[in-house]
């Protein structure tokens, strides 16, 4: 595989990752980035942040090499990592997030159960307040070109009494305020996702309900999974870009998803090599 031709990662048929057509539209798109243990989407998220902020994607697409100042505003909400983690990781992409005016980070990881949610058995009010803070920050600037990432929101379902419908309603509010919303979620089968679960209080049921409903409102889905055939030393996993339940061209004219399956390899020096499958 190492002799194969490296491919550029594109999401849309106009050879873009985050298309200009989306950013300049009046519509709001929703996409999912789902992964299982062993295939962390970190490299992809970094590239998407880079592409949203300055139009490039140095590690995954050589054609996107024109820097555009303040291409869009990025608000990143993480339930899994603090800001330092992203600052450090995005350095390889040539980004300095601490001095990036369009980048806002909301850390819902460091003090989630000490400050943000004090009582997990009655968390509705506190979680609504957390999402209100997200929407307030989105309303500060008049720039309509906004991209929002929410990483691992299902933590709220697994650790508190909050319902999946409640979380989806909060996410819908955020989605309406931005052009593109990415929900980054884990979908480990049985452990966190199981369609046969039926007990409403069960965290697996809540997560499954949340993810399937999320897929029903998404415009495109990005999925990362290990090779189904087993482990290989020169392949980390496969990445699939597939159509969502809602067609993209129903909200953004003539924009078409480039449905593709790639296999990728993250080398020891954190370079990403992509190949068509």
């Amino acid at each position, binding site marked *: 595989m190492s002799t194969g031709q490296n491919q550029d990662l594109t999401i849309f048929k106009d050879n873009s990752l985050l298309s200009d057509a989306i950013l300049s539209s009046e519509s709001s798109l929703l996409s999912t980035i789902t992964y299982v243990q062993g295939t962390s989407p970190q490299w992809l998220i970094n590239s998407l942040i880079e592409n949203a902020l300055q139009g490039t994607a140095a590690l995954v697409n050589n054609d996107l090499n024109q820097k555009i100042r303040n291409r869009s505003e990025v608000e990143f909400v993480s339930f899994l990592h603090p800001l330092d983690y992203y600052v450090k990781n995005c350095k390889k992409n040539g980004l300095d997030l601490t001095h990036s005016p369009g980048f806002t980070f909301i850390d819902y990881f460091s003090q989630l159960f000490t400050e943000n949610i004090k009582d997990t058995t009655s968390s509705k009010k506190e979680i609504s307040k957390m999402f209100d803070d997200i929407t307030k920050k989105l309303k500060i600037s008049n720039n309509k070109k906004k991209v929002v990432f929410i990483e691992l929101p299902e933590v709220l379902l697994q650790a508190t009494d909050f319902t999946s419908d409640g979380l989806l309603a909060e996410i819908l509010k955020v989605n309406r305020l931005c052009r593109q919303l990415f929900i980054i979620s884990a979908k480990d089968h049985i452990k966190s996702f199981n369609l046969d679960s039926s007990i409403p209080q069960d965290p697996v049921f809540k997560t499954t309900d949340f993810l399937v409903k999320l897929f029903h409102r998404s415009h495109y889905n990005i999925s990362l999974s290990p090779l189904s055939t087993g482990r290989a030393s020169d392949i980390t996993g496969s990445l699939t870009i597939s159509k969502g339940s809602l*067609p993209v061209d129903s909200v953004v004219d003539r924009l078409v998803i480039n449905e593709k399956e790639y296999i990728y390899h993250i080398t020891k020096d954190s370079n990403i090599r992509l190949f068509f499958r």
Partner: protein
Amino acid sequence: MSNQNSTVLLTRLLSLKENSPFLLVLDSLSQSSHYLIREFPHRCSSNNKILYLSYETANKVPFASEFLDCTTVSSQQIASFVKQHSNSTIATGSSTIAPSKTLVIIDSLNYIPNNEITQFLTSIIQPSIAILGTFHTNIPQPQSALLNYPSALTIFSFIASSIFEVEAIHEQFIDEESLENRVNRLDLPVNAGLNSNKFKLTLTNRRKSGRSVIYKFTIDSENHVYEQYKASKEEEIDPEDESLLKGLTTFNLTTNSKQKLAREQVELPYLEAQEAMGASGGAIVYEYEKDDDYDEEDPYEDPF
């Protein structure tokens, strides 16, 4: 009903000309109801008003006269919204007219709690209203707190006057079982014909008499063409088709016409006996032969 009549029925349902107060659409992750729902405003006339009740739609839909975000309001507010807007007039150019029929589209019925379904539907239903709701069948069904209480899907299917079930017409190279397995793990395959604007529709229409009729269609929502669904060739394998046996081994597994004729002429054993004696209504007929030694006194001797 002929092919043409079934398409007429579908078109009448889509244009709200057929009396059907609750139209239920069943969709899944492999084929969403998006394209089918768009066929309704395409077929409806300007006299029809469309109210959109949204539980999961982020962008306002262009065809809806009114749009309500149901995530922030109570069911009473939804009922009064429907009541208020279904009776209001429609502005057409310089004049205003009363709507002939109002279509209430509910983007997803999955958000209505199981025990509030009937209450919710009865609060919005009126003679001048047709409700069109989508139910996502992939979503896991929660166990009811009440023992033996039916699932939401059962209740909706029971109430519905017409059921539209959409399915993807997936590519031939994909095995149906592995596709289902992948979709159930949220691992949607690419270029497999999923969520396409051409899909298969199974329509169950319930008449007033209670009799339901089922038709299958292929819908091309891009050109708004509806055709009766024809099963793919794979499903119509003729068991007598000997071409399937060719190329399997070096042995000749087929039969020629002469061999077929000979096979048909073979007389199977006891066939003649069945004709002669089996004619007496299924009774067991025993015919004594000359060497039979029959003793009337011996009970074990009696063959019956």
